């Protein structure tokens, strides 16, 4: 009978206590794993969606709201800004690239964003089918919108699905994007002028990429044309210095608001961090309890097992061989806990994806190579091993003669 078989038999003989230790370790690891995976995914998505955007200019209000609405398309915009004023900053010497965003409509809850082709370039988007828009009311649909080339639909006003429908001016899908794992997967993109035209506005022809089709503006729903407005301006600056100076200048010298995505997201994750820290603390507590239970299981049973140890010593097993075998029991419990935790987390993950299409669309993956997973797993394994070391050390130092004489 091999040492491993002996260890497994020993574990099986105390299956209930070991089962509880494995379950505790497993639940602790599952919780830690899911927190790490969610945290990593959110961080990855926030970084990908905010890539290349140094400053966002929008209407005065909450800077976080401005970032969430214009970069991540999660919140309601703070308002609109005059296109004329935005143009001043678009042409500023410290600005490398400026992308206008005109929001305000949606289709079945999916936002319609009026923008320029630079927006596609920003996210390195690829056209999976069709082409980019060339005329007003042509759209390119994100991969997760469910739209196909040739589809026609009418946008609805506002961000609630029951908004007033712009039935007189339907959009036509001319292109569909390949999945990118970024926010544009769930956006419907068109020219700035398309959105403006629906709301009784138009931009000056020289600033409008679709100037050839300016005559179509006659078909506005609203008879009276208002001054052109956009929702936000996404700015890529020429360097770190500009990234610092530009918001200060805009906030000081204009009626507009400038916000930095990196700063606001750092603030947001700081706020959300309290919740995740509580969960993280809970998972560490469970892991700690699991380690204690492994220790209690092995140490508490040592008295009962001292006879077995004594028999093995008389059969030629050395002190350290026995101590190693006992330590292996702790390590195996920890390993089993890790396997169980991974399996439960995998099942929980599959369930979360099945009930939340948003998670699926966002590219949430069960990625065990995510940062932090390996160190936590190593910690649990080492903790399991360490929890067995004290009982193993005691077993190694036991006086066999006394044990054998005591019976």
């Amino acid at each position, binding site marked *: 009978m*091999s040492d491993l078989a002996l260890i497994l038999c020993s574990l099986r003989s105390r299956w209930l206590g070991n089962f509880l230790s494995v379950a505790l370790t497993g639940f602790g690891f599952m919780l830690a794993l899911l927190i790490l995976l969610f945290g990593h995914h959110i961080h990855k998505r926030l970084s990908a969606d905010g890539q290349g955007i140094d400053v966002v200019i929008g209407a005065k209000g909450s800077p976080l709201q401005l970032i969430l609405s214009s970069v991540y398309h999660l919140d309601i915009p703070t308002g609109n800004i005059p296109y004329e004023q935005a143009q001043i900053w678009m042409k500023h010497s410290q600005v490398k690239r400026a992308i206008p965003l005109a929001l305000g409509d949606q289709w079945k809850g999916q936002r319609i964003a009026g923008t320029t082709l630079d927006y596609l370039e920003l996210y390195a988007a690829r056209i999976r089918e069709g082409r980019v828009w060339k005329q007003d009311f042509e759209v390119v649909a994100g991969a997760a919108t469910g739209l196909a080339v040739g589809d026609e639909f009418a946008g609805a006003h506002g961000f609630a699905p029951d908004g007033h429908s712009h039935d007189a001016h339907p959009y036509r899908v001319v292109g569909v994007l390949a999945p990118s794992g970024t926010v544009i997967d769930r956006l419907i993109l068109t020219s700035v002028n398309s959105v403006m035209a629906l709301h009784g506005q138009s931009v000056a022809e020289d600033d409008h990429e679709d100037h050839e089709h300016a005559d179509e503006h006659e078909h506005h729903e609203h008879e009276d044309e208002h001054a052109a407005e956009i929702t936000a301006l996404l700015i890529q600056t020429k360097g770190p210095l500009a990234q610092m100076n530009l918001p200060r200048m805009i906030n000081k010298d204009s009626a507009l608001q400038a916000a930095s995505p990196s700063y606001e997201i750092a603030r947001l994750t700081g706020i959300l961090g309290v919740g995740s820290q509580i969960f993280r603390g809970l998972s560490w507590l469970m892991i700690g309890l699991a380690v204690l239970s492994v220790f209690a299981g092995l140490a508490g049973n040592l008295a009962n097992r001292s006879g077995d140890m*004594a*028999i093995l010593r008389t059969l030629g*097993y050395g*002190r350290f061989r026995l101590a190693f075998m006992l330590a292996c029991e702790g390590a195996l419990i920890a390993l089993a806990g890790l396997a169980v935790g991974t399996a439960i987390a995998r099942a929980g993950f599959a369930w979360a994806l099945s009930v939340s299409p948003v998670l699926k669309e966002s590219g949430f993956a069960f990625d065990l190579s995510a940062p932090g997973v390996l160190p936590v797993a190593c910690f649990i394994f080492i903790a399991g091993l360490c929890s067995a070391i004290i009982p193993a050390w005691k077993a190694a130092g036991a006086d066999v003669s006394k044990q*054998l004489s005591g019976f």
Partner: protein
Amino acid sequence: MSELLLKAQNLKLDRSGRDLFSGIGEVCIFSGKNLLVLGPSGCGKTSLLHILTGLLPADGGTVEFLGKNYSHISSAALNRLRGQRYGVIHQKLHLISHLSVYQNISLAFKGARKPVNKPMILKVLEELGLRERAFHCARTLSQGEAQRVAIARAVVHKPDIIFADEPTSSLDDRHTDAVCGLLMSLSERGGASLVISTHDQRVRDVFKGQVLEMQT
């Protein structure tokens, strides 16, 4: 002529200020020869067996196996020596209860660093009338069955010396004769020396070999 396997000289073991082995000068175990250590309870028989098997260090004196002094070899070598050359039967602590009879016996081979000889295990169990119990859990055995399995474990890997501590302490006359007969026949067939320590005077009547009497 028999070879001198084990030799213990001038052993000392202090217990409550008293040397348990003051009356013993030298203990020699020759190959194929048996030794009966006889004495009342508490005289130090079990301690002597533990010292001879290297489980307990003496407070003085020397123990040598084939000329190798226990105090000059490493603990790993001593463990190996015990596993390969000795078979030990304890008074009461016979088996590991959560293992099967077969697994308990196979431990003797693992301790001796030898490959497990399944046919040999089953043959010995057959001889002891326990073949059908081979794969039963040790905790389901009666005291007598457990003792016979412990005997099987002590002889199965063909050791040079078999040590048995109080093998008949809880047995009636008939079973005492049977166990002693079994131990002697198995050790004789395996070419091993048998060392029995007991307070049971009945053993003297059936034992063939040298007798060492200890006093309290």
